[in-house]
């Protein structure tokens, strides 16, 4: 691929060259995406703005999961639990002490981070299926746990909360304001993960994923990095959960069943494990495909959704991100 591109670039006049290096093109694409994201809420009806807000929420959660599964090669079947912890942290702090909503974000991040750190400990000792089982257990016991402490969590009735209103100076509608909050959080999260992966940590995680033995020989401290990967990953899920609470304004244990964890993992795999665009594509998939499946067949949306996932995995074993890359490469270049 590099050779083809190089040939193409060489054919251009010398001064235009920097614009078309892979980094330049990447920056241009990210800028275009951001511009579109900033423009969209002024163009779309509130319902679509709401849908895009939820896409951003899922994207942040998948970003965290991607860090753990895609980059560090660990597995988690219980990420919905971290998401729920973030959501409940925000909800309980708003409902009880009446914390202003911007402060619930760092709180949710810290709580989820610490919980992730705690769960990173078994991750050091367990691998593969055994680790998967531990994380699955976490997702399973969380729902009954949330129902127990009724005074704090509202029990199975859940908690209804006010949504963050737009400040008067902004002139925005509520849905637009929530969208921009989610967008800000998503952009910050993506930037953070980007820089994290480019640093020593990123290289250590990749080494860990590719071959634990070799990584250790090279001096990567496995326990530390495995635990940290879990903690970081949980933190992003918690942050996503907090934004979710802002957007939906209601939390209940039934919103965070095991199903959510499975959906997140499926979304990430479909989107593309270990790729930057994977979480975004996965979030789009999680948000839109179930509705499309329902439009196709009202009676059995689950069956259609399942078939769609299988189809995607057949056509694009590396996920939608990989598929998009392959398709672009197939387009013959003109030069």
């Amino acid at each position, binding site marked *: *691929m590099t050779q083809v591109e190089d040939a193409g670039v060489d054919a251009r006049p010398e001064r235009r060259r920097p614009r078309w290096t*892979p980094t330049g093109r*990447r920056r241009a*694409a*990210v800028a*275009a*995406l951001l511009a*579109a*994201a900033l*423009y*969209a809420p*002024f*163009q*779309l*009806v*509130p*319902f*679509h703005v*709401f*849908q*895009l807000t*939820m896409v951003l929420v899922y994207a942040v959660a998948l970003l965290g999961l991607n860090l753990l599964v895609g980059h560090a090669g660990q597995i988690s079947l219980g990420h919905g639990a971290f998401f729920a912890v973030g959501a409940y942290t925000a909800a309980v702090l708003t409902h009880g002490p009446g914390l202003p909503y911007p402060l619930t974000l760092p709180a949710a991040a810290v709580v989820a981070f610490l919980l992730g750190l705690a769960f990173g400990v078994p991750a050091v000792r367990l691998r593969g299926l055994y680790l998967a089982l531990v994380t699955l257990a976490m997702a399973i016991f969380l*729902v*009954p746990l949330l*129902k127990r402490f009724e005074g704090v969590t509202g*029990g*199975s*009735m*859940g908690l*209804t909360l006010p949504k963050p209103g737009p400040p008067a100076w902004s002139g925005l509608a509520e849905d637009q304001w929530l969208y921009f909050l989610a967008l800000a959080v998503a952009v910050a999260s993506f930037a953070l993960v980007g820089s994290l992966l480019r640093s020593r940590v990123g290289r250590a995680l990749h080494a860990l994923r590719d071959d634990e033995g070799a990584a250790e020989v090279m001096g990567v401290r496995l326990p530390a990095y495995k635990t940290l990967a879990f903690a970081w990953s949980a933190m992003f899920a918690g942050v996503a959960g907090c934004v*979710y609470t802002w957007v*939906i304004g*209601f939390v*209940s244990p*039934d*919103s965070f069943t095991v*199903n959510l964890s499975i959906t997140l993992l499926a979304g990430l795999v479909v989107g*593309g494990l270990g*790729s*930057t*665009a*994977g979480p*975004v*594509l996965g979030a*789009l998939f999680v948000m839109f495909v*179930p*509705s499309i499946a*329902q439009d196709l067949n*009202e*009676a059995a*949306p*689950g069956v259609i959704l399942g078939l769609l996932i299988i189809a995607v995995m057949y056509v694009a074993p590396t996920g*939608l*991100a*990989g598929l*998009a*890359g*392959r*398709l*672009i490469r197939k387009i013959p270049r003109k030069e």
Partner: protein
Amino acid sequence: MRVSAIGCAALLLVAVGACGGRESGGEAGTAASGQCQGQQTTGITDKSIKLGGIYPLSGPASAYGDIPKGIKAYFDYVNAEKGGIGGRTVEFIVRDDGYQPPKAVEEARRLVEQDQVFALFQTLGTPSTTATWDYTNQRKVPQVFVATGASKWGTDGAHPWTIGWQPNYVSEARVYAQYLKAEKPSAKIAVLYQNDDFGKDLLGGFKKAIEGTQLTIVAEQSYEVTDPSIDPQMRNLAGSKAEVFLDITTPKFGSQALAADVRNTGWNPLHIINNVAASITVLKPVGFDNVQGVVSSSYYKDPNDPTWATDAEMTLYKQKVKQYAPGADPNIPYLTFGWAVANSFHKAMDAAKCPTREGLRDSVRDLRNVPIDMLLPGVTLSTGQGDAFPIESMQLMTFKGQRWELFGQVIDTRKEFGPLTG
């Protein structure tokens, strides 16, 4: 390769953005003129009316997916044979939330903003309805006859656009209390309840209803929906030697409680099982011989009950369901429920002074003894100032032979206990 993927996502966003301007939907609604001036007429014309319902068609609660089938059959029948509701053809859009509150919010917004429905005609389940009712009330969209028995739909004053339909759990509890007061005025009672809003609502209502009587609760056990078995709870309750066992459970646990009661030959209380778990499918696995004399209550006609075999409403219902919902089994009570609630909407819409959202909101809160197809004789819809519970009457039934047999009079809990307030 990653670059291209991001580019594709950008393109997709822009494409979505190009689909429609912000002004074209969203806030845009239509208003009536004349005597109903200024009221909202979104989703309703002289020829049509558009309704949206949200049900769990998938997931663990998908058995309720039969309710919209009954509703659709009713509306199709009315459209084809009666010229619709007041000359308006009904379009009923059903969306699936899988019993997930965030999905319900999304679907509610889709129905209101994109499909521009006149009203949400039923959301199912307490969590999904709680997640959506702030939104519908903010948007001033009627959310009528929600399919959940929580009492807050009627006691809450801040959500005038939302109203329930079926008897709430507190009313049901009052019916059992009334029965016990008359039949076993000094009974000791053991209670098993599901530890959630449903179980607590019913138990709380029961405790309030027996205040100041000789009836006492001597044992109380709860279980979680996630529990595999309720046998330990049943053993504890048996130890109390209570004369009455109030069984507040959902179907799976209802079967278990009945079976445990049968196995324990040393304890033979009067077994009262709540309406939610009183279906034949719950009793069958326990064996009909073993559940003779169990007591429950109901408010609509059971399609399996031979009492109604020649009933005109029942005959029409079975015939039309076969005709308009081929493949659906009219003997499933959820379809009957759907038929009755759709008929209620029909009557409420007919009674509305204005064919507007405000008209419907006011009409469902001003129903005066409106008879409804498929409800038990004597059970009618009644609401008014300070009473936002359409159905508050039920009749007791006892299991005899292979079916439930109604007995006694319809108990109107409004008359016996006064209005229900928060």
